[in-house]
């Protein structure tokens, strides 16, 4: 909703799966999206410079530069990126809903699309005197809308931030850490 993501494109996927063996079985929900890696393979692979990491650590795709070669999708360990194959795709067809019409043209056909950490909301934080991760308007939409309050957002460089405290206290770890991409998304074990 927040980002007018067209059909076939996902900022976040949730893996719904069972783990363990009977009778000790658990059901897990594992949201996976862009991990905004410090050493992002997509940024190195991107031939046009469309995929880039900002000063604040957010990895973005510049839709004005992307050539659509999809090498970034090949190198991403998380399958976090999608190729936007349709220009006028609508979820409920034949025509777009008013919301879809409003968001139309955000992602040109033939470009690669992924989670932005709602960078536009983060950017607004400064001008409005808000703190990302604390003020809802300056925090990624998925964090604010999670009904279980399972998502947290904050500054990983600030050791006193809530996210750093949570990672320390609960032993948070990124996925596929062994690939050495230094992801910025951590998972807190239950």
């Amino acid at each position, binding site marked *: 909703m927040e980002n007018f993501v067209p059909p076939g494109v996902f900022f976040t996927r949730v*893996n*719904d799966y069972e783990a363990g063996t009977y009778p000790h079985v658990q059901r897990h929900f*594992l949201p996976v999206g862009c991990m905004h890696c410090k050493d992002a393979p997509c940024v190195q692979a991107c031939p*046009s410079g469309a995929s880039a990491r900002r000063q604040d650590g957010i990895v973005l795709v510049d839709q004005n530069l992307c050539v659509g070669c999809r090498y970034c999708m090949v190198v991403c360990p998380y399958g976090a990126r999608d190729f936007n194959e349709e220009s006028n795709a609508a979820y409920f067809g034949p025509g777009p809903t008013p919301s879809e019409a409003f968001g139309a043209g955000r992602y040109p056909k033939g470009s690669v699309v992924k989670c932005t950490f709602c960078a536009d909301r983060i950017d607004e934080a400064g001008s409005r005197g808000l703190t990302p991760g604390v003020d809802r308007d300056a925090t990624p939409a998925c964090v604010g809308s999670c009904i279980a309050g399972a998502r947290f957002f904050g500054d990983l460089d600030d050791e006193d931030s809530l996210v750093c405290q949570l990672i320390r206290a609960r032993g948070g770890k990124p996925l596929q850490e062994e690939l050495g991409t230094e992801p910025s998304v951590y998972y807190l074990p239950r």
Partner: protein
Amino acid sequence: MLSRKNPRSGAEILRFAQNDRKGEIWGLKVVGYLFLAGLGSGAFGAAAGLDLHTNGQSRDLTNIGAWIGLLGVGVGALLLLWDLGMPHRFFRLVGNKSSLISAGTVILTVLLVLASITIIVAVFSPGISPTVYRALMVLAAGFGLATSIYVGFLLAVVKCRPFWNTPLLPLLFVVSSFSTGVSALSSVASTASGLRVPAAAADILSSGEVLLLGLELVMVAFYVATMENALPQARIAVRRWVRGDLAAVFWLGIVVGGLMLPLVLMVAGVLVPPPLVAILILAGGFSLRYGVLSAGARSLVPGEAQQAAFVR
């Protein structure tokens, strides 16, 4: 092979690997590019080698090698452009020094320019000094080699796809490039009428062909054997090759049709039309690219296989 303790998850992972369309981000157009660029590069290598070996006495053949080179690399490059989401932005492909695609685009462009110059020279000034001609051919062969190396590295550097993540892959691609290039040229040498083909040229081409096929066969075996002992997704890829959905591509296309049969036919001296052998070898080269690209699935994150099975 997959863990026998937990066959259910193994089967699910296999099913996911076989059905996951996102796993195959690059399709037939890229397969075609990898194959044609390899063939063209190999043809340049063969032609330059031939020119050196026969000391410029096989100009007819080396010209044909240059034509095969230009056509292969040119059509391959067009396929690559066609595959882009936004082909009109192709000039942006050279926007990042650290990107292998940017480096590859530069190499490919230089190769195309060199190939075009070689052809123009061959057509319009056949009397050009042999030294200049040879220098052009050797330069083109050098950039051809660089092309066939970078396309291998393009895949081999991808850490999250264990089936590709080995230096064996670029080596295999280079050998396959040469073998397809040499066999294309060799089949022309033995069929085309009205060409002056020195015996030395025909000999070196056919023995080169046999040598390269033998080497490639050993490398394919070695590649499969090392991948069998690698990370889970690489083992799954081997399983798909050996007895899964890609078994026909692997056994018929790569191993038997592309390598063993041509090898046996040539070593045993069976009289078959040379173009037939070349078609087998080229089909083998195409199958190799297709098999490698199709089986290069990503290492999965927890639950990904189950989720995919559930959605279906």
